């Protein structure tokens, strides 16, 4: 596959059409090409980063009440054939004042001329003191005052807007789902359901409501059976486990990630991620699982708990690669994960800020090639005795492993073919790794190392 074809794939993916046209065979080609082409790989990583960060840019909530009021005014103006001049148009500065005065005068005249005038009079005085969220009778005048310049949202300073959206695993929005459900927020410490504020999700999975400052329990009270909730988060807060803190100074964007019920796998992954050198819980914030069979770039992530444990649910069976995300750049020394339909537990991932790739060659003491394809087990064990990776067979008698840089490892070799024995195990510095010697992984960036295992015939 050529770079041009991969770029076409990227263009499709950016334009959101990949799942419609990319076959499984092309997935495989793209992945193969990416492994050997740093430019395409970089480009894909750039776009993935851009897409991730774009999604994290918050959407400042609109003042829904004011927008509805202004729309009602537009409809009212339409009925009376008075064209409403949109707010974005420039108009002489005196016109809004004239309109305002004429409406106030007209309303006042009307108020004094018809029965039941007291309520209208009191409304006029109320709007002069502090314009409220417009009632049915108040809408036209309030909206006209606002028509040239929108006033800030009518949200008291001790309140903040909480808005949110429901979206699918691939980041796409829900659309045209009229009975999606509703969310509930109840102040922490309150009892019973009466204290909960219920907000309906609209057909596109959005909601927005202002809440007084405080700590709330956020939950999805009712939800469509067509979907399963995967995560609920507000920034870094996992709302499936944590409370939501509303402060008076900033809006909050809640993200509810769901999966279609038919897309749910049965596999569950339980594991821990620890520092490969110290064995302490990793500094990583999230574990990312890549990639689903449906699309090479599709990923799902889960938070790493303070004790280093993590859990994925509903993962279809298959081969995956684990990645890490967080404030510090961390990589996984043993990223391969094989998930069966029943799931997998006891996974232990080792994180490191930098890995060293070690190529291990098996050869005969005569200098000849091995006359068979070795099925040898080559294990690197950290000096803390918890880090342990098995080298993978690459081709012929070449094996490869990745270990955290700037640390030392014992090398254990077993499963040598009958009739052969290990004569020596040495690294590039000629360290004898067979008799208690430790392999030292260099610390330099992009470092690689080599170990030679020499066999002899019995």
């Amino acid at each position, binding site marked *: 596959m050529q770079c041009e074809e991969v770029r076409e794939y990227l263009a499709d993916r950016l*334009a959101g059409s990949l799942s419609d046209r990319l076959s499984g065979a092309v997935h495989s080609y793209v992945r193969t090409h990416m492994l050997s082409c740093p430019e395409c790989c970089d480009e894909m990583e750039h776009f993935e980063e*851009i897409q991730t*960060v774009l999604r994290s840019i918050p959407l400042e909530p609109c003042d829904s009440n004011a927008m509805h009021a202004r729309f009602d005014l537009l*409809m009212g103006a339409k009925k009376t054939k008075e064209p409403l001049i*949109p707010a974005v148009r420039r108009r002489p500065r005196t016109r809004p004042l004239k309109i305002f005065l004429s409406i106030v005068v007209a309303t006042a005249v009307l108020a004094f001329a018809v029965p039941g005038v007291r309520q209208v009079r009191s409304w006029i005085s109320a709007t002069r003191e502090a314009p409220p969220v417009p009632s049915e009778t108040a809408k036209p005048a309030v909206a006209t005052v606002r028509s040239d310049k*929108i006033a800030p949202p009518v949200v008291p300073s001790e309140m903040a807007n909480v808005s949110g959206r429901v979206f699918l695993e691939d980041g796409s929005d829900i659309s045209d789902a009229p009975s999606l459900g509703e969310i509930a927020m109840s102040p922490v410490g309150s009892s019973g359901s009466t204290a909960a504020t219920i907000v309906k999700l609209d057909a596109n999975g959005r909601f927005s409501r202002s809440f007084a400052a405080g700590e709330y329990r956020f939950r999805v009270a009712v939800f469509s059976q067509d979907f399963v909730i995967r995560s609920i988060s507000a920034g870094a807060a996992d709302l499936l486990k944590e409370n939501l803190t509303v402060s008076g100074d900033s809006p909050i964007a809640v993200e509810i990630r769901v999966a279609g019920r038919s897309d749910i796998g049965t596999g569950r992954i339980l594991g821990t991620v620890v520092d490969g050198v110290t064995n302490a819980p990793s500094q990583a914030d999230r574990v990312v699982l890549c990639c689903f069979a449906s699309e090479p770039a599709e990923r799902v992530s889960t938070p790493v708990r303070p004790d280093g444990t993590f859990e994925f649910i509903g993962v279809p069976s298959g081969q995956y690669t684990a990645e890490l995300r967080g404030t510090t750049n961390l990589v996984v020394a043993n990223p391969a994960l094989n998930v069966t339909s029943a799931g997998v537990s006891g996974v232990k991932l080792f994180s490191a800020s930098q890995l060293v790739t070690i190529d291990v060659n098996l050869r005969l003491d005569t200098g000849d090639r091995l006359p068979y394809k070795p099925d040898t087990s080559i294990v690197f064990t950290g000096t803390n005795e918890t880090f342990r990776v098995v080298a993978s067979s690459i081709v012929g008698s070449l094996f490869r492993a990745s270990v955290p840089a700037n640390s030392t490892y014992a090398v254990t070799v077993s499963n040598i073919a009958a009739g052969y024995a290990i004569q020596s195990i040495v690294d590039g510095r000629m360290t004898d790794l067979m008799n208690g010697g430790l392999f030292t992984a260099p610390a330099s960036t992009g470092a690689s190392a080599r170990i030679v295992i020499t066999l002899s015939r019995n």
Partner: protein
Amino acid sequence: MPRNSTDESLMAAVREGASGELETLFERHHPELYEFFFRMTGDRAASENLVQDVFYRILKYRDTFRDEGRFKSWLFRIARNAHHDLFRKHRTVLPSGTEGARKDKAATLRCALLKLPEDRRELVVFSQYHQMTPDEIAELLDIEIPAAKVRVHRAMMDLWDLYRTLSG
């Protein structure tokens, strides 16, 4: 008209004089219109004004809606025009105050997005925030589908370059 009527049938009714049906269209589409304008301008008040302006234009130009066309494409064509007109009139006002915002990646990228030329910015917004397919973008911009893909790709590359530059 039933609440689950299609956008197209509602708009056809509005065109024929049942302007009350516009309310359903407003309920359905004002959040995504607001998001479009907010992503384009970074300014909440301007975005709210622009949403209002779009519905004003829908009423004013309702006769131009054609039955064979999709309402959403027509709606966003109006939205693009409304944004373009505002941008032309208030060039010095928008986009608003994200200069120097380098606190985090999101702030930097928001700044980069607002610095993108308008025609590229809207491609990023349509493809990344509204998940529009190449077919939809092509229909909206009245271009061929391969051209839509290429333009989205270029817009994202430009955004990446700007983002890198601003990230220092």
